[in-house]
């Protein structure tokens, strides 16, 4: 199952990035089987305290890549939401699962994937219901968001960010 979310807002509706890539940056590449070329890859237990690790790691990556003002905050908030979804929903009351985070930079676009081996995104009766704000928030903060559930189990949340411009909510001056 693949679900795509288009961002809507003041800048208009934009389709989810189609995965097409321009010329790669001159940087050593770690190539994944799916063609993803991550600069960063983390695999860690899906527990609340590890969300902070992902948050700081991605913040460091944006910092090194020279992200524009606001981009680091957008990325940190979006990955926090995505990882929190894994921690709270992916493994139910059993817990004990893991999450994987990959991040790649290509042509000033940062692509991040947050993956788990959990029970997917089908409705679940048990477990905390959540507030339903996480994915819309990620969609607002990112340039594109793609959700997919693997047949064998597990969910992938892929989001992309421009390193040159924050997609987050802009402050408006009063008249």
């Amino acid at each position, binding site marked *: 199952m693949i679900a795509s979310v288009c961002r809507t807002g003041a800048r208009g509706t934009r389709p989810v990035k189609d995965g097409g890539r321009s010329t790669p940056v001159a*940087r*050593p*590449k*770690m190539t994944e089987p799916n063609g993803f070329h*991550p*600069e*960063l*890859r*983390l*695999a*860690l*237990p899906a527990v609340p*305290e*590890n969300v*902070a*690790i992902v948050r*700081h*790691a991605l*913040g*460091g*990556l944006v*910092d*090194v890549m020279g992200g524009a003002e606001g981009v680091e905050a957008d990325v940190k908030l979006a990955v926090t939401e995505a990882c929190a979804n894994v921690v709270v929903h992916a493994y139910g009351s059993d817990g004990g699962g*893991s*999450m*994987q985070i990959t991040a790649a930079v290509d042509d000033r676009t940062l692509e991040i994937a947050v993956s788990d081996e959990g029970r997917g995104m089908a409705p679940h009766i048990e477990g905390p219901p959540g507030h339903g704000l996480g994915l819309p928030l990620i969609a607002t903060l990112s340039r594109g968001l793609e959700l997919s559930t693997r047949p064998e189990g597990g969910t992938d949340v892929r989001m992309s960010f421009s390193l040159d411009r924050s997609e987050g909510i802009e402050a408006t001056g009063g008249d």
Partner: protein
Amino acid sequence: MAEGERNPEEDGSQASGQAIVIELAPGDIAEVVLARIVGILASRAGLGVDRVTEALALAEALGAHSREIAGDDHFRVVATANNGDLCLTIGPVATGDAARLLQLETHPALGSVIERLADRVEVADRGGEVLELHLSGTSKLGPTA
């Protein structure tokens, strides 16, 4: 399992237990991101503030030489933080590179900075050569002024 194949349970590539598997592009990214992660883990392990600072210095030293060790591949570290102990396992690396990494960051008075900062240093064979570093609660450099 085929000969030479990695065992995820042994090498931590699937985040078994509390292990965190970190794979980073070598260079600036490894230096900055590894330090951020290690800083959090050192705090989580309950190390004192002096020791956390030394863990950060250690992570920066590792990251600074990541390209010399990893080449065009990723720089791989498996980290575990337990009560009073932070363990960093670097690798697998090419044979001889674990010992070489220790000598890449040296100080005229201190010798190998990595050996100086870590409580225990071990070069081990875990389906490939790894460098295992342990940091515990006592500063190796003495109290700071």
